[in-house]
């Protein structure tokens, strides 16, 4: 239903703006959305288990700057990508540890790492943008093309397929649904709830970390203030995609649809010349409206 509305919107846009339905524009949107989708894959699994992660935007900034700094110290590019991603994994692990072992509510724990990781990014860069001595290859992942399609598109597709597989075929995915559906029942069924949740945080941290590297590559710089509000873009995509805020329901494909809805709306409004201030208002209305509509439809089906 929501999807139908969006389709109508997209069709209308393609009439209103000649440049909307072009490959260049599609590539544009894809590149913008790909960061949200790649991180969103893991975030969907985490939110299905009933947990949150607010730190991903800051992780994005931190790992992006780390990868840039490492390259300026002449660390090979491939190694800097791996190391920076691992820093993201480490933060994910820390989040998981705080939530599971220290029993801190996930919103609070990841709010903490959100501030701390951002601060760390600012400290290691001295608040400056790293742009000298990065070399040509640094922008390959983020700006490069395979044929006519951006590389980021392929990375995104791989991430989506991988997480669709995890979600639908593996014990990890199943446990995420079980824990989010009823944590107590899951625990009583002998599921090691703690280690599953830690693992999910680890995945989120890793993908956010990798997205950070990609982002830096796209921008061609290590920027400590990048990705502010990114966590909410991801959460909006996940929620629009039908993942329940309480957990237990949701899907990666839904999240992809959600991310593209937001992406196309922003892009379409851009092409129509709507000021970005108004775009934020539209985004807010779409989120609340879509969730409301979704609930009304579900209620109608039940009756």
């Amino acid at each position: 239903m929501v999807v139908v509305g969006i389709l109508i919107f997209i069709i209308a846009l393609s009439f209103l703006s000649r440049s909307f339905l072009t490959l260049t524009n599609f590539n544009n949107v894809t590149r913008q959305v790909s960061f949200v989708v790649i991180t969103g894959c893991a975030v969907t699994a985490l939110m299905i288990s009933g947990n949150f992660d607010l730190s991903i935007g800051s992780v994005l900034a931190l790992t992006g700057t780390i990868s840039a700094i490492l390259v300026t110290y002449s660390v090979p590019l491939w190694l800097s990508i791996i190391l920076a991603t691992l820093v993201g994994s480490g933060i994910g692990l820390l989040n998981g540890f705080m939530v599971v072992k220290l029993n801190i509510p996930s919103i609070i724990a990841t709010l903490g790492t959100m501030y701390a990781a951002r601060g760390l990014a600012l400290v290691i860069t001295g608040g400056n943008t790293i742009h000298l001595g990065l070399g040509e290859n640094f922008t390959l992942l983020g700006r490069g093309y395979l044929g006519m399609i951006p590389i980021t598109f392929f990375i995104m597709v791989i991430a989506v397929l991988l997480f669709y597989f995890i979600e639908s075929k593996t014990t990890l995915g199943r446990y995420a649904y079980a824990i989010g559906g009823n944590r107590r029942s899951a625990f009583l069924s002998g599921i090691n709830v703690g280690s599953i949740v830690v693992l999910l945080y680890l995945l989120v941290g890793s993908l956010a970390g990798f997205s950070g590297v990609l982002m830096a590559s796209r921008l061609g710089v290590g920027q400590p203030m990048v990705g502010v509000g990114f966590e909410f873009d991801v959460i909006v995509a996940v929620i629009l995609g039908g993942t329940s805020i309480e957990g237990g329901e949701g899907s990666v494909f839904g999240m992809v649809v959600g991310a593209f809805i937001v992406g196309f709306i922003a892009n379409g409004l851009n092409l129509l010349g709507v000021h970005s201030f108004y775009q934020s208002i539209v985004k807010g209305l779409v989120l609340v409206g879509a969730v409301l509509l979704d609930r009304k439809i579900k209620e109608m089906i039940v009756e």
Partner: protein
Amino acid sequence: MGEIILRVRSLSKNYPGVCALRGIDLDIERGTIHCIVGENGAGKSTFIKILTGAEKRSGGDIYFQGKEFKPRSIREAMNLGISTLFQELNIVDQLTVEENLILGREPHRYGIIRKPKYSERVFQLMNDFAPDIPLKKRAGLLSFAEKQVIEIVRAIAADASLLIMDEPTAALSESETRRLFTIIKSLKREGLTVIYISHILDDIFNIGDVVTVLRDGEAVDTNSVKEISRDELVRMMIGKVTTDKYVPRMVDYKEKVLEVINLSTNKLKRISFCLYKGEILGFYGLRGSGKTEIVLSLFGLDRPGEGSIFVQGRKTYFKLPRDAISQGIFIVPEERLTEGLILKLSIRFNISISNLDSIASFGVIDAKDEIDLTKEYMRIMSIKARNVEQQVATLSGGNQQKVVISKCLHAGANILLMDEPTRGIDIGAKEEIHRIIRKLAEQGNAVVIFSSEYSEVLSLCDRIYLLRNGEIVKELKNQEAEPEEMLRVITGGRWNSHEVKLE
């Protein structure tokens, strides 16, 4: 016969697949304390829910003070003059006694709360009944009994003329019970009518005027308390034994699968028992007698303070449910919906979840195996559903319970701990669950039933332990068990229940 304040005529209530009330007729006289007794599942709680407006009736009429009574909510019932003291109290712990007393009716001007008038009736009543409870104290610091007094006072101050009390003494100590009774008696003197629901017989003979027995959703009989003996009352509650009869089975009393010695927690006192292969063992006791606590300790959910557990002769120690499951122990929890199942998920997901590793390699689930095994359990247990993908939330209680049992078996359990296995399940499905339990025992599993229904333990169990106040007070073989005697033992003298909390 005085004035009838509440007149109930052929009141009935059907839940999907269950008939909870089958045409109840009842007259309640103004100014009396009218007790309603009955076993679990007799229809007491359904009856209260309809009277309080929490549930809609399926048929019948209720007249309250001569007028037709059809409340749509608890609040509406209250406004009409029927207040209820539920087992779960509606007291906000963070507020003070005073704030709780006037909750929802705070005197205010433009939304700003003003000082309460202590001349108000609610404060006078509080002063009459419990002058010792300080008004400025935080409610969270009060005992259960003290909070109960606040609720009673609140109900009377709201001009209730009929007060329903649901098992009010279940969590009270002896002295607290006495105080409650004093209050109830003074309410009666003021002309208030009380419907008193309980299965503690002592209470009824202590303060009741009239007693009505409910059984299987019917009002069996109403008598004056003075004219009825305890034995007669017990007999009426029990009725005649149903067709679902105990069939003696051959149990090999040599092979112990589980032995518990001196298990003690803050609620349990030196629980010791043995369970044999192929046996169905019963624990029979009231709510709060410690049944659930035994289940919790045996499943690694509650750390026993002392005592030892032997599984197949080996001493074990469970830190987590996982540890118990790995020893072949699994529970069918009392709270089927919140602990047994994951309601949003399908039958297939619910059954396989307890042992996904058996159908997965390297973490990848074999969907075909999973569907096959679900179909197999649906066949063995005769789970009625459209297909394996049906959400368990949409199944009937009986079918849901079969899913939970399937889950246990899939986990490889051979010792099943079943806490109130047929609560909320209608009679037909109940017998079916009982047949399944017997079959499990025949196949060499050992089953422990924890129940507050005598008929359940009597029709299933080879041996029965009677529980009272966290203690095993008697062990019986099925053949020597008499329902009257069992009920008498578990409801026996009152107990000091500082330790017994509501489950």
